């Protein structure tokens, strides 16, 4: 079965990104497909490659990056939500005239249309938020 996932809260403040991660891993282990995870609201903050959590804590962004690589998951960060919160890829940073970008490997910035498309193309959609 194809399962789409939405993460709509930021890392560390809420458990949402953690629960979503464990859910996606279990879904893949169970033989399901997770073609895409869509990050919205403060969920876009998961994608920053600049977070440096203490060594004895999980690294949420790394976990997602690794999982996406291993299983070819499309991690999409909503452009509108990302721009508000200061998350830019190289392309967007140039377009907006900013001097830095901060999107981690494995994530890509795109539009809300990707969320709707995921809803259309998957059999189930599960949202993790607050």
């Amino acid at each position, binding site marked *: 079965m194809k399962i789409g996932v*939405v993460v709509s809260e930021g890392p560390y403040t809420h458990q949402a990104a953690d629960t979503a991660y464990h859910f996606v891993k279990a879904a893949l282990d169970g033989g399901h497909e997770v073609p895409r995870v869509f990050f*919205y*609201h403060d969920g876009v903050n998961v994608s920053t490659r600049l977070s440096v959590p203490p060594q004895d804590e999980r690294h949420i962004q790394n976990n997602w990056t690794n999982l996406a690589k291993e299983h070819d998951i499309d991690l999409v960060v909503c452009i*509108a*939500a990302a721009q508000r919160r200061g998350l830019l890829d190289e392309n967007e940073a140039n377009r907006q005239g900013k001097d830095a970008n901060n999107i981690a490997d494995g994530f890509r910035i795109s*539009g*809300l*249309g990707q*969320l*709707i*498309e995921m*809803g*259309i193309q998957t059999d189930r*959609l599960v*949202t993790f*938020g607050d």
Partner: protein
Amino acid sequence: MSDVKKFLYVNRKAPYGTIYALESLEVVLIGAAFEQDVSLAFLDDGVFQLTKGQNTDGIGIKNFSPTFRALGDFEVTKLYVEKDSLEERGLSPDDLQEIMYEDEDDDWEEKPSIRLVSRAEMADVMADQDVVLSF
């Protein structure tokens, strides 16, 4: 058309205190381009999103309540509002904005987009969807 799905956007949060209401509306507006069967649900504190007379000048946040009145232009015409939620908050339907759409199938007659439903009817609306997005 088998590739049209029923999408429900569930709004349970009040505007301005958090961004959920605004970013929900942004999804609805973008989603309109995909020509799916779209409904919006307003229950619990979500009913506060639709009240008239919102004026955000003093808090410096954009007042997006007028945008609900444009939804008809985007062919989003089903706004289910839960009566019980209104009553629990001391509101009546008169406290809400008038939101109209032009019905293409009925000689473009103007019709109200807001459909007042009971809690049980709201449960029926929710149970009749393919995709439920919560905000």
